[in-house]
């Protein structure tokens, strides 16, 4: 499993692996927002946590369809399915690799972009913590969506239609924690619920995703 993780990370970080594209997308989304809503700092300060969360979510979504598609096309997914490690484990490792190459960099980059949106200083910690706790859920739920749509020709569009409604609870709690943190309110409750969602998804979603993969590989 560690070998698989190393391999996925190597593929993702290699040139043409799409690493960094998600980050660039995040940057562009955040830069576009002030053009859309106007440059008043008071408005930007108020919407900053939500915009950063939505930007991170979309950037995460962007790279999901690559999670299984490349391995499906060249046949290595079939080999992985017949390998001695359980398919659930493969899914979990691939979701972890996805998080390490998108969720984690997005989390680390968010404070830099928060400066552009004038996030109040006390909000930075909460933004990073909420993203760090919430983005794993995005990767694992996304793995399920990617597993459902792996064999389809126009899977990418369908993937976003399937996955976005599933992201609603994560987004609500994550953005709420970041917003409360930014306004200096108590943010422990949404953060705890967010962590619960992440842990629950990490525990259960690999099974659903593996079931979908088995159907698609049949």
């Amino acid at each position, binding site marked *: 499993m560690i070998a698989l993780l190393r391999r996925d990370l190597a593929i993702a970080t290699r040139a043409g692996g799409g690493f960094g594209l998600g980050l660039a997308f995040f940057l562009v989304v955040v830069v576009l927002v002030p053009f859309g809503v106007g440059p008043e700092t008071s408005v930007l300060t108020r919407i900053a946590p939500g915009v950063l969360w939505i930007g991170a979510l979309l950037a995460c979504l962007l790279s999901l369809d690559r999670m299984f598609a490349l391995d499906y096309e060249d046949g290595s997914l079939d080999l992985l399915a017949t390998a001695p490690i359980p398919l659930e484990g493969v899914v979990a490792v691939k979701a972890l690799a996805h998080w390490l190459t998108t969720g984690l960099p997005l989390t680390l980059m968010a404070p830099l972009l928060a400066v552009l949106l004038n996030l109040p200083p006390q909000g930075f910690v909460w933004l990073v913590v909420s993203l760090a706790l919430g983005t794993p859920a995005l990767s694992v739920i996304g793995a399920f969506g990617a597993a*459902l749509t792996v064999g389809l020709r126009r899977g990418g569009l369908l993937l976003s239609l399937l996955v976005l409604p599933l992201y609603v609870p994560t987004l609500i709690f994550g953005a709420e924690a970041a917003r409360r943190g930014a306004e200096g309110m108590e943010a422990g409750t949404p953060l705890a619920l967010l962590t619960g969602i992440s842990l629950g998804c990490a525990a259960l979603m690999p099974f659903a995703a593996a079931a979908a993969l088995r159907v*698609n590989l049949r």
Partner: protein
Amino acid sequence: MQQDRGALKSRGMASLWEYANPKRFMQVSAVLLPWMAGLSALCLVVGLVWGFFFTPDDFRQGSTVKIIYLHVPSALMAINAWLMMLVTSLIWLIRRHHVSALAARAAAPVGLVMTVIALATGAIWGQPMWGTWWAWDPRLTSFLILGLFYLGYIALWEAVENADTAADLTSVLCLVGSVFAVLSRYAVLFWNQGLHQGASLSLDKEENVADVFYHPLLVSIAGFVLLFVALVLLRTRTEIRQRRLQALLNRERMA
């Protein structure tokens, strides 16, 4: 499968699983469908005419209260349609009865239409009463999310070519989606406080709606339930025929 059916027969019991046989299903549903459709039309006409013309106006809401005869039943059926899809998806995953998977497929568009009716009537009522077509109220938002789940489910059915693969994938999506729909419901409650009134109907409360409105409402709900059953039967029959047609075409191509 064969054995337990035999065992049931020997005990003289008709099993529910008998109707998993497409032929049996077609026979029984052919008899049931006209009755269901007729009863549903009767209930809807009685319930709606009674509700619209023979109940007094509410002392605060005026005649807008009468939209309840469309709004509450359609909202009820929108949720129950998803529950039915959940049950039939489980039956398909566990017992591999094709009729079950096709019934789930048949129910989805009906459920989506019910969701849209509930949202639309709610908006029409909300404009004069709340002064807005739409508010990000927990109930409204949950329904919107339910509508999105229906859309995704239908889109996945349409996208996958192999029928059995599609049935499997949509069933898994239905299970996962159900968990997340419930999760979203509570997340949304946490997120925003509501404008929507409490439940119009519940089993544990004495009275939420005055009797004059309540009785036509019950008739109208019965009409919607029967309408849903009739539509699902009709659509399932169409799906089965479509499947047979496809099988015939495939056989012709092979020959």
